């Protein structure tokens, strides 16, 4: 299939405008493959026609959502999107702890939305344990939620395979995991105990109303599955849940600005971060 640059750019702009997700130019092949799948499914010969279909003949956005489902990779593993975790660990956490110490408060609250099988909240637990000075003097809560009870069950068990731990730095692997059997990695109780898992539907209007005073909200690569209005609703809830100065993290290719402009946008460590 021919994908002239002009149409690649048109498609890319359309995706960005509607979802805030951006694809760099070197992703042309990645997009081409998946685009071909959708075009085959819909009987489209020319990219031009498919794009026109998305713009004019897909009012409910169903085809668009099918395309997005293909484009967005939904794999979860420890220390995913490392550079973002780095700015969290090195800059944002430092700012929050400094403020708290100055105010004489020693708690940290983290919310992890769409936690799936637990890799993300446990990753955050490891980071907090590593980065907080005098860890035992802090009260740390990581609340991790998901709509799927099955994945929550797996998350509570906390046992993982090779694929999930592939990016865990060796030192952390030794320190925070045991190997009950070959190819199995179990997260240690001292990290497990930092996380509370809960069943929750983000779309439920009142679901997050009683959550407040969080320092960090992580919602990475979750909102891509929501429609425009729902996405905004959820992000507005997150705003209400954060303390003033608290940070929110979406996936690195997701742009919060297309969803809400209530947050303050900053550049830290060569990354964009968003704060209440």
């Amino acid at each position, binding site marked *: 299939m021919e994908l002239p640059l002009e149409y690649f750019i048109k498609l890319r702009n359309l995706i960005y405008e509607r979802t805030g997700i951006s694809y760099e130019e070197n992703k042309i092949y990645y997009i081409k493959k998946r685009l071909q799948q959708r075009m085959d499914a819909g009987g489209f010969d020319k990219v031009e026609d498919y794009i026109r279909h998305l713009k004019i003949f897909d009012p409910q956005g169903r085809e668009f959502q099918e395309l997005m489902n293909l484009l967005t990779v939904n794999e979860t593993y420890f220390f995913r999107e490392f550079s973002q975790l780095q700015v969290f660990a090195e800059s944002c956490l430092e700012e929050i702890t400094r403020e708290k110490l100055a105010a004489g408060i020693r708690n940290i609250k983290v919310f992890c939305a769409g936690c799936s099988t637990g890799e993300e909240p446990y990753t955050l637990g490891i980071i907090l344990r590593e980065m907080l000075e005098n860890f035992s003097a802090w009260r740390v809560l990581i609340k991790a939620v998901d709509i799927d009870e099955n994945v929550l069950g797996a998350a509570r068990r906390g046992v993982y395979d090779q694929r999930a731990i592939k990016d865990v730095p060796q030192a952390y692997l030794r320190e925070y995991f045991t190997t009950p059997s070959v190819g199995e990695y179990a997260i240690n109780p001292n990290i497990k105990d930092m996380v509370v898992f809960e069943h929750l539907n983000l779309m439920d209007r009142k679901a997050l109303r009683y959550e407040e005073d969080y320092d960090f909200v992580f919602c990475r690569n979750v909102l891509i599955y929501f429609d425009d209005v729902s996405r905004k609703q959820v992000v507005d809830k997150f705003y209400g849940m954060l303390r003033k100065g608290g940070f929110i993290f979406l996936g690195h290719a997701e742009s919060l*600005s*297309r969803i809400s402009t209530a947050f303050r*946008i900053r*550049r830290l460590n060569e990354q*964009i971060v968003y704060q209440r």
Partner: protein
Amino acid sequence: MGEKVLIVDDSEMIRNFHSYILKSIGLEIVTALDGADALEKIYSSDGNLLICLTDINMPNMDGYTLIERLREDPQYEDLPIIIISTEDELQDKQRGFEAGANLYIVKPTDPDELVENIRMLLGK
């Protein structure tokens, strides 16, 4: 990373047209769809912005708010900002200058006038 001009407008044609004008005097361009997108682009880059051209009426975030937010950041306190808008009443212009714009141009843009204004703002 070269120094760039940021063009902010919800009309694709206007973004294109202003890009053409500025490319013709050798400037590099970054475009944004609206104020929110502009902030995203600004904070994604390493701050090598020469000048910002912005419309007022745009979805998500209007031009006045964009300018006010930029002026709150010490890094962009002195960034030359030109408003290019269809709004032509005195109160719109006053609002623009209060927000922190350096210049206010009413659409449709005269290419030569725009080039001259940019040269003047950049001191060349």
